[in-house]
């Protein structure tokens, strides 16, 4: 593959900055290579009452909504290299 030779210069300039911006497709490709395909994830929070019945509390519903919104974030959601929340992080949040 022919490769363009292009080196960033004057990175510390501020009036006319020259920050190299990698193509979005390149970042997505790099993330896929490093982390594999990200499956769609969703949680459902169920609370068992003292009588072992399952309840749908407001708090559980609210948390479920918020966490599922976070789980829909894809790699690079901040425009750079941020990753979506891990399963462990979600379990910790729910546990708390």
């Amino acid at each position, binding site marked *: 593959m022919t*490769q363009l*030779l292009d080196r*960033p*210069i*004057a990175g*510390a*300039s501020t*009036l*006319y900055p020259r920050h190299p911006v990698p193509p979005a497709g390149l970042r997505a490709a790099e993330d896929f290579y490093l982390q594999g395909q990200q499956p769609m994830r969703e949680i459902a929070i169920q609370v068992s009452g003292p009588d072992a019945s399952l309840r749908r509390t407001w708090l559980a519903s609210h948390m479920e909504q918020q966490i599922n919104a976070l789980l829909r974030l894809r790699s690079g959601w901040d425009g750079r290299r941020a990753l979506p929340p891990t399963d462990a992080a979600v379990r910790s949040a729910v546990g708390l």
Partner: protein
Amino acid sequence: MSEHGGPRASLAEFAAPPVVEVALGAQFRPLFGLRPIELAGLRERWRDRYPLVQEQPPLPPAIESFSLAPEVQFVIGPALQTRVWFLDQEQAELVQVQHDRLTVNWRQTSDGAPYPRYPHVRGLFEDRVAELRAHVEEAGVGSLDITQAEITYINSIEPDDGRQGRLDQVLRYWQRPVQHHLGEPEQARAALVFPVAGIGTPPVRMYVAADPAQRQDGRRILIFTLTVRGAPVDEGVDATLRFMDQAHDHVVRSFAELTPEAMHERWERRQ
């Protein structure tokens, strides 16, 4: 642009150079302990001179190597790093600090503000790097081992009638494509890379670029940038300053040699 002095061929000197920004910078071995919270001490030390503070994304490493192709550089350390800008009230003097880099900038933030000349900006860098080194040692986060130094001059040139295809007004050897069936280009850009021998530890390079740009007031200009970057002969501050002095000489000579003499009259060349 002005003569630095010393026993060298006299450098070109311009009374009204088109320079709008100068940056003198050093990259050093990463100090991952130099997080924003550890910069609080510097903030206090610099508060009187640089009362304004901003955060910016960090700059990636820019290390000269013998391969001209882009290289992947791995830096193993905490992911959350930032670049802090310390600015004076006029925002003309700027110090940029991140875990592996210090840069001092002068910027023309008001029309016609005169370029304070290289010795002044060099003095600012010399003071800031000494203060950073002291702070790093006091904070116990490591030592300042400089791996790359660079100087950058950015010039703003207004082509006749805002014609950004007129690179001949920036580059002496540019030939206008007058026979082209589509006429004069609307925009043009050029990039040159020169190896620089005799300073620092090879490889050292000078990057020259001419690019179209637009000022905030809408005026179309050409930006002419010259950067010299490389490793000083050792990792100390004295070697870095010597490297910058020599790099500055190359920048001034190149500016005079690469730009057309007709523009030298506009910039009031004195010698």
